[in-house]
C-alpha cells in the first residue's frame, strides 16, 4: 500500500509553497480583487518560469512529461493560495482537451505554446444562468465557422484560443478550436462573484473554427475533459478548504470573548472539527482521484465525481464557517474571509453544479455495476 505522495512530489510541494508564499500572498490576490488587471502577472510569469505549465505535457510536445500526481500537488497549492492566474483554464481544460482529442498536427501546434506559457487556452461551454446540455445549447456550428455567445468563459478575455462546445443539426455537438484574436470574435470582461478570476462574454459571429476530436461527440468529449479536470480542481478546492480552516482556527485561538479564547467554546470547536472532518474526507477522495487520473484507471469517472462532490462540499463548508467564526469582521471587505467564500462558489459551479455531479456519480456507479 502506497497511498501518499512521494518524497520528490512533497519536495515539489515545498517549493510551490515557498514560491507562492513569496510571490502570491493574499495581498497579491486582493490587488486583483480590487484592481482592473485580469490576473497576477508576476505569479503567472513565475509559474511559467518554474515549468508548471509544462508539468504534465509530454516531452514530445516540449513539456516536462512528469505525471499527473505532480500536477495535483501544484493544484492543491494554487487552491490554498487562491492564486489569480489562468493556469486551470489553460492546463486542466485547454491542454487536457487537446491531449485527449487533438490530431497530431493540433497537438504539435498548440501544446508547445501552452507548455511554454506563450499562449493561454480556455474552454467555452456555459451560456448564461442555466445548464448547457443536449436540450439546451444555442451556439451553432456550420462546416467551419461557429455562431453564438458563451458566458461566462474563465480567462476568455486573455486567452489566445478557446475550445468551444457548439451544436450541429439534430442535437449533436462537437468541440471546436477558435482563435479568439481572429475574425468574428468579440469579447468583453464580465462581472462575477469572484473578481480574482477573470471571466468574459464571447460573441462568435461566423468565427472560423477547427474541429477538435470526433464530430458529434462533443458532450462525450466534454465529459472526459471534465472528469480529468474535476480531479485537479478538487485539489484546488481541498487546498482552499484547508486554508480557510487554518484561518478560522488561528482566529479562534487569538480572538477573546467573555474572557477566554473563542476557540475554547464547544460551539466553535465543533464547527472547526466539522470543517476538519469535511476536509479530511475530501482530501482522501482527492487522493483516490489522483490515483485514477495518474494511472488511467477505469474507475476515473467514479473517482473524479467522488473527489469533485466531497471537495466542493468541503470548500463551501470551510469558507462559510470561516466567516461565521470571524463574526462581524468576517463580513467586511477588509478581512480576507470573503476571498475563500467567492472562490469556493466559483469552483463549485465551474464544471457544472453539485447536483449534477452527484447524479453523475450515481450514474457512474450504476454503469460500473452493470458492466
Amino acid at each position, binding site marked *: 500500500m502506497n497511498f501518499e505522495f512521494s518524497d520528490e512530489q512533497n519536495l515539489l510541494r515545498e517549493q510551490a509553497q515557498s514560491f507562492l508564499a513569496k510571490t502570491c500572498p493574499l495581498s497579491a490576490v486582493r490587488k486583483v480583487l480590487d484592481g482592473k488587471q485580469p490576473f497576477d502577472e508576476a505569479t503567472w510569469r513565475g509559474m511559467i518560469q518554474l515549468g508548471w505549465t509544462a508539468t504534465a505535457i509530454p516531452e514530445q510536445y516540449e513539456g516536462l512529461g512528469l505525471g499527473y500526481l505532480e500536477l495535483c500537488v501544484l493544484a492543491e497549492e494554487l487552491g490554498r493560495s487562491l492564486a489569480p492566474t489562468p493556469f486551470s483554464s489553460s492546463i486542466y481544460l485547454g491542454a487536457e482537451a487537446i491531449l485527449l482529442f487533438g490530431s497530431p498536427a493540433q497537438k504539435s501546434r498548440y501544446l508547445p505554446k501552452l507548455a511554454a506559457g506563450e499562449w493561454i487556452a480556455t474552454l467555452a461551454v456555459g451560456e448564461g444562468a442555466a445548464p448547457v446540455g443536449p436540450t439546451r445549447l444555442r451556439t451553432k456550428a456550420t462546416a467551419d465557422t461557429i455562431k453564438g455567445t458563451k458566458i461566462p468563459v474563465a480567462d476568455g478575455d486573455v486567452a489566445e484560443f478557446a475550445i468551444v462546445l457548439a451544436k450541429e443539426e439534430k442535437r449533436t455537438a462537437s468541440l471546436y478550436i477558435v482563435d479568439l484574436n481572429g475574425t468574428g470574435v468579440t469579447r468583453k470582461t464580465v462581472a462575477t462573484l469572484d473578481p480574482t478570476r477573470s471571466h468574459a462574454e464571447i460573441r462568435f459571429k461566423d468565427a472560423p473554427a477547427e474541429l477538435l476530436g470526433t464530430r458529434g461527440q462533443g458532450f462525450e468529449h466534454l465529459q472526459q475533459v471534465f472528469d480529468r479536470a474535476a480531479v485537479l480542481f478538487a485539489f484546488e478546492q481541498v487546498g482552499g478548504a484547508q486554508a480557510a480552516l487554518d484561518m478560522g482556527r488561528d482566529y479562534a485561538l487569538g480572538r477573546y470573548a467573555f474572557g477566554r479564547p473563542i476557540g475554547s467554546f464547544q460551539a466553535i470547536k465543533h464547527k472547526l472539527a466539522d470543517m476538519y472532518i469535511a476536509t*479530511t474526507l475530501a482530501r482522501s477522495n482527492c487522493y483516490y482521484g489522483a490515483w485514477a487520473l495518474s494511472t488511467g484507471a477505469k474507475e476515473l469517472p467514479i473517482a473524479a465525481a467522488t473527489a469533485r462532490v466531497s471537495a466542493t462540499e468541503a470548500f463551501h463548508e470551510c469558507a462559510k464557517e470561516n466567516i461565521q467564526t470571524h463574526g462581524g469582521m468576517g463580513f467586511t471587505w477588509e478581512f480576507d474571509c470573503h476571498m475563500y467564500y467567492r472562490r469556493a462558489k466559483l469552483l463549485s459551479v465551474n464544471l457544472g453544479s453539485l447536483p449534477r455531479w452527484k447524479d453523475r*456519480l450515481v450514474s457512474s456507479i450504476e454503469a460500473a455495476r452493470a458492466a
Partner: protein
Amino acid sequence: MNFNDTPQEAAFRAEARAFLDANAPKYVAARRNETEAQYVARGKQWQKLKAENGWACLNWPKEYGGRGATPMELIIWNQEESRYDLPVGPFAIGLGMCGPTMIAYATEAQKREHLPKMASGEVIWCQLFSEPAGGSDLAALRTRAVKDGDEWIVNGQKIWTSGAHYSDWGILVTRSDPSLPKHKGLTFFFVDMHSPGIEVKPIKQISGGANFNEVYFTDVRIPDAQRLGAVGQGWQVSITTLMNERLAVGNAGGADFDEIYDLAASIKIDGKPALANPAVREKLADWYCQASGLKFTNYRVISALSRGQTPGPENSITKVVSAVKQQDIGSFGLDLMDMGGILMDAKKVPAGLAFQMNFLGAPGYRIAGGTDEILRNIIAERVLGLPPDIRVDKGIPFNEVPTGS
C-alpha cells in the same frame, strides 16, 4: 501511488490467508437459534486455534502469547480475518484495551500469568470504567476503594460494561481519595469478576439486545498486588486504556452504501426503481462520498504504517462519520420500505433486518467509546490545537464538586 503490498507484506498476507482458508470456515456458521453462551463458546474455540498457531494478539510480544508482529502485519491479518464472519466480538475489549494496559503496568509475573490466557481466549476480560455519574466525564467516577492492610475494599457501581456477564477478569478504575481534585484521587486495579460481592445485571438496549451490564461492587476485596500504577495514578493508567480504545473503536459497520444501493435498485416507486428518484440519488451520492472518504483515509494511515511512519490524526474522524452514516442509512432504508418500514420480521422485509438494526443500533454507536461530541472535542483539541474546555471543577477537592444531586 498504488494499492499493492510490498513483497514482505504479500508473503505475510498469503500465509495469513492460507491459515484462514484452511480453518476459518468451520467457525463461521452459527447454529440456528444460537444462544449467546454458544456464540461465546464458538469464539473461544476459534481464539484457541489462532493462539496455538501464532495468530492471536499479533502485535503482543511472543512471551505473552502474541507474535511480535509489526502494526502493518496486524492490519493485514485484520483485513484477512474480517473476510470471514468469525465470532471475535467477545475478545475485542480484553485484547484491544485490557491487554495493552496490563502490558504497560502489570508486573512481569502477572503478565506471564494472565496475558497468554487472555490471548488464547481461555479467559475473557472486561473494562469497568463508566459509571452512572461518570460517562463522558469519566473522571467523575465515585466507586470507592479503601485500603485495608494488603487489600482494598471496593464499593460502588459501574455501568455500560460490555460482556461483564461472561467475563472472568476486569480492569477497574476507582476513587481512592475523594478529598483530592477529580483526576488526582483515582487508583486502578485488575479484578477477578468471580470475587464475592460483584453482581452483574444486564441492561436491555433499545435494539432489544443486552450486550451491556450494570456491575455492582459490595465490599469487594482486591489484593493490593493487583493495583496497576501507583496509588492516585489511576487517571494516567486510564488514559493508556482509552488511547487503545480509540484504536479499537472504528467503523460502525452495519448496512452501508452497498446495502442501501441494492435496496434502492430493488424497490420500485410508482413503477420505477427508487434508484431513479433524484432525492434518492442525492443521498446515495453523499453516502458514497463518506464511505469512500473513510476508506481512503484508512488507506493513508496504512500507507504511513507500511512505510514505518507514525500515522497522522486522520483516523480520528472514522467513528464520528460512520456512526451517523449508519443511522441515516438505516433510517432512509426504512423510508424506502414505505409503510412496511416499521416491520420487525426478517421474513417480511428486504435485507433481513439490516436497516432496522442500523436504525436501532446506531444511537448506541454514536455514544459508545466516546460520544460524537467528545470526539469533536478531541479533534478540536488534539488535531487543531484549540484550548481545552474551561472547567469549573478544576483544582477543587472531588467531594466539593457540585453534582446536581
